[in-house]
C-alpha cells in the first residue's frame, strides 16, 4: 500500500443543487479564472444555457445557439410570408443559383433574338410515336446563307430549337457541356454534336433527346473546342405543342 496521504475533497458548501455541469467537479468560478469561489457560490444563475461560463469554447456554443435561433426565427417568418416552394432550387448552392440565373437570362434573351432576326426555319415536324430521325432543312433566315447548318433531331417529343450563333462559327469545332433546365433535378441534355462545315458541305447539329426527358426549356452555350471561346447559345424547348423551329443570327 502506498504511504502517500489520500487526497480528500472537502464537502461542497452549497445552498442548492448544482445543475451546471461545469461546476460539478469544481467550485463555481474556478474555470473562469476566478479565485472568488466563495462569493460566487451564491450566484443567482447557475443553471441555464443562456450563459457562457465553463469550459473554453462555451462562449462560441452560446453564440451559435443565439444566431441559429435568430436565423430559424427569420426563416419561419419568411415561410409564413411566402409559403410557396421553389423546389430544390430554394436550397441550391450559390454556384447552382448563378448557373440558373445565367440560364434564365439566356432564355429571356432568346425571344429578343427572335424578334431581331425574324424569320424562322422550320424543321421536319413529323415526330410522333416511335423515335424518329429528321434532317432539318438549312435555316432560312437572314443569315442562313452564312451559317448553312443542317439540323438532325432524334426525339419522341415535340421540340423547339433556338440556335444563336456568331458569324463565321460554322467551320469551328463547337462543343457544349450540356444543356441545362432551370429545375435542378432534370438531367442535362448531353447528346449534342456539332459537325463543322468542310469545303462545300453543310455544318450539322445533331441532337438526341432521351425518351423520358422531362419537358421544359434546356439551355447552354456552344464553345470553340480549340480555345474555349463562347460562340453561341443553344436552347431546346421540349414537350410544348409548337412546331419545331430554329433561329440563328
Amino acid at each position, binding site marked *: 500500500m502506498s504511504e502517500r496521504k489520500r487526497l480528500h475533497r472537502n464537502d461542497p458548501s452549497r445552498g442548492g443543487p448544482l445543475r451546471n455541469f461545469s461546476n460539478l467537479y469544481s467550485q463555481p468560478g474556478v474555470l473562469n*479564472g*476566478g479565485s472568488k469561489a466563495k462569493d460566487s457560490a451564491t450566484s443567482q444563475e447557475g443553471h441555464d444555457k443562456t*450563459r457562457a461560463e465553463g469550459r*473554453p469554447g462555451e*462562449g462560441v456554443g*452560446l453564440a451559435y445557439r*443565439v*444566431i441559429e435561433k*435568430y436565423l430559424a426565427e427569420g426563416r419561419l417568418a419568411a415561410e409564413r410570408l411566402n409559403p410557396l416552394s421553389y423546389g430544390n432550387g430554394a436550397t441550391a448552392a450559390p454556384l447552382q443559383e448563378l448557373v440558373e440565373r445565367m440560364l434564365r437570362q439566356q432564355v429571356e434573351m432568346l425571344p429578343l433574338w427572335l424578334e431581331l432576326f425574324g424569320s424562322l426555319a422550320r424543321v421536319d415536324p413529323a415526330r410522333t410515336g416511335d423515335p424518329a430521325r429528321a434532317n432539318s432543312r438549312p435555316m432560312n433566315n437572314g443569315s442562313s446563307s452564312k451559317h448553312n447548318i443542317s439540323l438532325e433531331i432524334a426525339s419522341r417529343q415535340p421540340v423547339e430549337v433556338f440556335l444563336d450563333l456568331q458569324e463565321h462559327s460554322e467551320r469551328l469545332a463547337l462543343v457544349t457541356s450540356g444543356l441545362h433546365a432551370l429545375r435542378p433535378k432534370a438531367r442535362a441534355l448531353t447528346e449534342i454534336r456539332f459537325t463543322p462545315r468542310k469545303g462545300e458541305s453543310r455544318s450539322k447539329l445533331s441532337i438526341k433527346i432521351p425518351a423520358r426527358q422531362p419537358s421544359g426549356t434546356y439551355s447552354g452555350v456552344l464553345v470553340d473546342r480549340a480555345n474555349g471561346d463562347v460562340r453561341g447559345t443553344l436552347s431546346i424547348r421540349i414537350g410544348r405543342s409548337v412546331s419545331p423551329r430554329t433561329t440563328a443570327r
Partner: protein
Amino acid sequence: MSTGSTLALVPSVLREYGETTRAALQQYLPVREPRRYLYDLLSDYPRRGGKMMRPSLCIAACRMFGARLEDAVRTAVAIEMLHNGLLIHDDIEDGSEQRRGQPTLHRLHGMPLALNAGDMLTLASLRPLLDNRNVLGESLALRILEETERMARECAEGQAMELGWRRDNSIGVSDADYLKMVLKKTCWLAAIYPIRVGVLIGTRGGCDLDRFVRFGFFLGAAFQIQDDLLNLVADSRYGKELNGDLFEGKRTLLLIHAFRRSTPRERARLSSLLARPREERTAEEVGWLRYLMDKYTCSEYAQRMAHELAGAALHEFALLTASLPDSRDKSFLEQMPTWVIERT
C-alpha cells in the same frame, strides 16, 4: 489566426477605403444655410475621424468578388452617414459626454439641434443609395435599399432592448440576451449590413446573403465586447469617456457577469445603483462598480468571450470564401476578427 505584421494590412486598407469614402461623402454634405444650426452639425462627427470600419467592410466585400471600388463607394458613403446620424441619437439616448475625443453634439449645441441634425444625416444617407441607380441599375439599387430598411429595423430593435433594460432596471439579463441585443444593435450596422450589401454589389445579387450573417455576427459581437472593454481603459485614442458605460448603466457583458457573480448584498447595492439616473451616480459609486468587476474578473471573462467569437468568425469566413481566389480584400476581411480584438 493572423497576428503581428500581417495585421498591418487592416489599418492600411481602413485608411485607403476610409479616405475614399470621406472624399465621396463630402459631395453629400451640403455647405449652405442654415450652416450654423444644421449643416455644420451634420459634418461635425464625420470630420472627427473614426475607424471607417463599416464602409471598408462594404468595399472589401464587394471587391473580394472582383467588382470595382466605384460600384460600392456610394453605398459605403451611405453607411458612414447613417452610422454618424445614429451616433448623434445614441449619444443623446445614452447621455454620453464625449465622442471621438470631443464633447458630444448635444453638449455642444443642445439637444433639439443635435436631434434635428441626427434626423437629417440619417435621411440624407438615402441620397447616395438612390444615386446607386445610375451605376448599379434600378433592381440592384432597390435591393440595397431593402437591405438598408432591414438593417434599420434590426438596429432600432436592438437599441430598444438595451434602452428598455436600463429604463426598467432589468437585472436578469443573461449572456444570451446580451448577444441577441448586440446582434441587432451593433452587428447589423457594424458588420452584417456592410458585408451583405458589399457582397450584393460584388455578385450583382447572385449570392445567398444569409450565409454572411454568421460571420458578421461573430465579428460584430467580438467588436462590441472589445469596445466595452476599452471603455474601462483610460486612453485618449479611444475617444470616449473613461467608465462611460458604467455611468450610463449599460448592460455590458462585464456588468452582466459582475451581477451574476455578486453576493446578495452586492447585488442589492448594484441594483440600487443602476436604478438611479446617470446624474445621481457618483464617481465613488462607479469606482465601487469597477472594484466589483475586478473582483469577479469580468474583464478576463469578456476578453475570453471576444477571443472565442473572433475565432468563430475566422472559421465562418474560411467556410464562406474557400472557393474565392486570394486577394488583398479577402485577406483584409480575414484579418478583421483578429484586428477587432487586438485594437486599443
